[in-house]
C-alpha cells in the first residue's frame, strides 16, 4: 500500500492527540486554568492537525462533511462521527476546566470513551480489509489503541502508566510484525484463486494490461523501501518504545521527557510508514506482484 504522507501524519498525530485527550478526560493530570489550557491546546493541535492532514488525500475535501452520514455501515464514517463527538465533548469539558475551574467528571469520562472510540474506529478501517491480509487481525486495533494510550500517557506525564503501556505497545508491535509476515500466505489468496486457472497449472503473469503503471499499481502495489524494512523496524522499535522507557527510568527532568516524547513520535511514525509500505494488497497478484 502506498504510504501517503498525509495518512501517516494523520494516524500518528491524531492517535497521540486522542490518547492525550483520553487521559485528560480521566482527570490525569488533574489540571485547571492555564495549565489545563496548555494541555488541551497540545491535544487539540495534534488531533485536529491530524484530521486536517487526512483531508489532504481526498479527491474532494469540500464534500468531507458527507462522510458523517454512513455510520451504520462504514468504519470511516464512524471514525468521523466519533472524532467530532470526542472533540466537541472534550471542548466543553476543557472549557469548564480552563475558565470555570470546574471538573465535570461525567463529561470527561464520556470524552475519554469517545477519544478511545476514535482510535478504535480508525484502526478498524484497516483491520476490516480482507484485501490486505497483514492488516486484517484483532492485533491491529489492539496495537493502535496501545500506541495511542502509551503516547497519551507520555504526554500527560503519567510516568507509571507510560512505563506499563509503552512495553505493552512494544510487545504488540512485535507480535503484529511477526504475524503480518505470514499473513499473506495464510490468507489463501494466490495467483491460482485470483485467476481461477490454478486447475490447469502454475500461473505466471505474462503481460500486464498496459505498459505503463496505473492508479492501482501506484496506490495498492507500492514496493519501494521494503528492502530496508528490517532496519526500519529496528529504528521504530528503538525510538518508539525502548528509548522512551529508558528515559522514563532515569530521574525525571522536563528536557528528558521532551526527548522521550520526540523519540516516541519518530518511532511511531516509522512504524506507521512500515504499516503501509509493507502491507500487500491482493490485487497485486493480477500483476504478478505482491
Amino acid at each position, binding site marked *: *500500500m502506498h504510504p501517503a504522507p498525509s495518512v501517516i501524519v494523520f494516524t500518528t498525530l491524531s492517535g497521540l492527540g486522542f490518547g492525550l485527550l483520553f487521559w485528560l478526560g480521566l482527570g490525569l493530570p488533574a489540571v485547571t486554568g492555564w495549565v489545563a489550557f496548555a494541555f488541551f491546546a497540545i491535544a487539540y493541535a495534534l488531533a485536529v492537525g491530524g484530521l486536517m492532514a487526512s483531508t489532504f*488525500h*481526498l*479527491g*474532494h*475535501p469540500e*464534500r*468531507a462533511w*458527507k*462522510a*458523517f*452520514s*454512513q455510520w*451504520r*455501515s*462504514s*468504519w*470511516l*464514517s464512524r471514525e*468521523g462521527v466519533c472524532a467530532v463527538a470526542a472533540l466537541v465533548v472534550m471542548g466543553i469539558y476543557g472549557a469548564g476546566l480552563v475558565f470555570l475551574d470546574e471538573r465535570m467528571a461525567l463529561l470527561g469520562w464520556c470524552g475519554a470513551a469517545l477519544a478511545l472510540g476514535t482510535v478504535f474506529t480508525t484502526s478498524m*478501517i484497516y483491520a*476490516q*480489509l*480482507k*484485501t*490486505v491480509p497483514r492488516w486484517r487481525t484483532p492485533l491491529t486495533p489492539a496495537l493502535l489503541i496501545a500506541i495511542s494510550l502509551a503516547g497519551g500517557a507520555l504526554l500527560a506525564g503519567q510516568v507509571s502508566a507510560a512505563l506499563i503501556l509503552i512495553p505493552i505497545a512494544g510487545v504488540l508491535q512485535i507480535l503484529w510484525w511477526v504475524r503480518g509476515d505470514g499473513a499473506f500466505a495464510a*490468507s*489463501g*489468496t494466490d*495467483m491460482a*484463486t*485470483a*485467476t*481461477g*486457472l490454478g*486447475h*490447469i*497449472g*502454475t*500461473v*505466471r*503473469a*505474462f*503481460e*500486464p*494490461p*498496459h505498459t*505503463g*503503471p*496505473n*492508479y*492501482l499499481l501506484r*496506490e*495498492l502495489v507500492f514496493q519501494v523501501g521494503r528492502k530496508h524494512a528490517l532496519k526500519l523496524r529496528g529504528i521504530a522499535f528503538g525510538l518508539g518504545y525502548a528509548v522512551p522507557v529508558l528515559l522514563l527510568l532515569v530521574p525525571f527532568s522536563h528536557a528528558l521527557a521532551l526527548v522521550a516524547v520526540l523519540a516516541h513520535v519518530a518511532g511511531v511514525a516509522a512504524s506507521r510508514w512500515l504499516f503501509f509500505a509493507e502491507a500487500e*494488497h*491482493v*490485487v497485486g497478484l*493480477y*500483476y504478478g506482484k505482491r
Partner: protein
Amino acid sequence: MTTLPASTTRKLGLVIDLDTCVGCHACVVSCKGWNTENYGAPLSDQQPYGAAPSGTFLNRVHSYEVQPLASSAMPHPAAQLVHFPKSCLHCEDAPCVTVCPTGASYKRVEDGIVLVNESNCIGCGLCAWACPYGAREMDAAEGVMKKCTLCVDRIYNENLPEVDRVPACVRTCPAGARHFGDFADPESNVSKLTAERGGLDLMPEQSTKPVNKYLPPRPKDRLDQPKPVGEIDILAPFLAPVIEEPKGFLGWLDKTLEKL
C-alpha cells in the same frame, strides 16, 4: 445507504469466456470510448503522448501463462497463454459498497449493478482498497472514483437499437467472449453458459460472491504429444496429399529449374 440490499430482483452481469478471448483489447477501447463520452466524469489520461502515460480504465485485459505439471502421459506439456479481461464483478457482497463513508457507492436493488454517485464521492479511495479485483480506479483529473457501470446508460437506453442495449465491451467483442444477462434467471443465456462450462468465481475465498463468472479455457490440441491410443481421425484420409510428384509440363519445369 451503503448497506447492501438483502437480495436484488435481477442479477445483471457478464460471463467472460477465457477460452475464446483472443486478447485484442477491443473491449478496453470501446469501454474507454463509451464511458468517456457518456455518463459521469470522463475517463481521463495523464500525459497520453508523454514520457509516462497513464489513465483511468474500467476494463483491462491481462495475459497469463499457465504451465501444466509434467506427467508420464505428458512429459513436456506446452504452456498455455490465457488472455484475461477484468472489470467490476458486481459482487453480491460487495466490500467496496459497505466501506463508503458518504453513501456514494451503492448496489441497486432492481438489477444488482454497483454504481458510484459521483456528486457524493469525496475521493477517499477506501473502496478501491476494499476491492480485491482492482475494479475501481480514482480518476486523477476529477478526483472521484470510477468503475464499470455495466453500461447502465446503454442497457436501458431506448434511443439505441435493441441490439446495442448491451454493455459496450460485450457489443464490440469480435470473438464473442463476453456475454451479458441476468444471473437470477436460470434460463438466461449467462446462467446456461455458466452451468454448461463450469463458470468460476475469482478469489472465492474473499467471500465477495461475484456475479460475473469466468469460463475456464478448454483443453487445447497438443500437436507435439503422442496421440492417445484409440483415437480415430476421420478427416485424416481426406487431408492426405493428393499428388506427390508433379507431372507433364509442371514436372518438366520442376526438373529443368532443378538443373539450373
